[in-house]
């Protein structure tokens, strides 16, 4: 994080809205990238707004300005999980997906099918660990859980994947 960005984060933590708006401009693509992949596609814009609003409300609690990116990433992942939770609650079983027309579309459908079978938390862990190749330590930090917890859940997810693939 450069000095200018640090200054913006410090300004935002003390309640300066303009500093926060500058941070939004810097991080909006980063957040859209996370939500596009981790959240429901139909709600990307709405979730991205919720993430920034939630961050703005609680930024005064951010102790280390350097941790802003990780902190915002964590909020984004949790908001995506919340959105999935609402969707999962509304439906009773995994959705029936249409037949795919080509191998790429087929893989996309298979991926969606697998992810929709996992709980919102496991879904995030799987995508972070196995699709984005992040370390267990990093995943733990992002989700606010211990490394051991990540490992245990990852092991369970892997067993499910072996069964489904």
């Amino acid at each position: 994080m450069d000095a200018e960005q640090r200054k913006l984060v410090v300004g935002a933590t003390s309640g300066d809205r303009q500093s926060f708006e500058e941070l939004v401009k810097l991080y909006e693509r980063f957040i859209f990238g996370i939500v596009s992949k981790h959240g429901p596609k139909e709600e990307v814009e709405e979730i991205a707004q919720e993430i920034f609003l939630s961050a703005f409300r609680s930024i005064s609690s951010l102790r280390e300005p350097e941790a802003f990116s990780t902190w915002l990433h964590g909020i984004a992942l949790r908001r995506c999980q919340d959105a999935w939770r609402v969707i999962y609650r509304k439906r009773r079983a995994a959705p029936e997906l249409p037949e795919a027309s080509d191998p790429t579309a087929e893989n996309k459908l298979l991926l969606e099918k697998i992810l929709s079978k996992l709980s919102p938390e496991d879904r995030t862990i799987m995508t972070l660990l196995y699709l984005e190749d992040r370390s267990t330590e990093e995943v733990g930090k992002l989700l606010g859980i211990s490394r051991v917890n990540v490992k245990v859940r990852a092991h369970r997810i892997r067993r499910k994947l072996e069964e489904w693939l």
Partner: protein
Amino acid sequence: MDEKFKELKKTWSQMEVFEPSARWRTDLFRKLRENRSVSFLELLAEWFPKAALLSAACALVLIFISELPGINEEDDLSIVTAFSDYTSADSDFDFSMDDYLEVP
């Protein structure tokens, strides 16, 4: 499984990423203006007058109740006086406040 998973990983990396629009940003900035972050002092400044107003309202209600007919100091005193007169009168009735207040 590994081969299939590699394919899925590739699919994941190629998944569509949405872009923020100017309209989205304007809408967010409007919401931010409405949703200011609140510090402890601001919270105190917001709630202190409300708490003071509520206390004053409670005090007024209590004063009003105490002024209602039948509930005043004079009546309370007259009841105590009458009871005291009755128990101190010369009679065979053996009753004292100590007996009355004795805890079994």
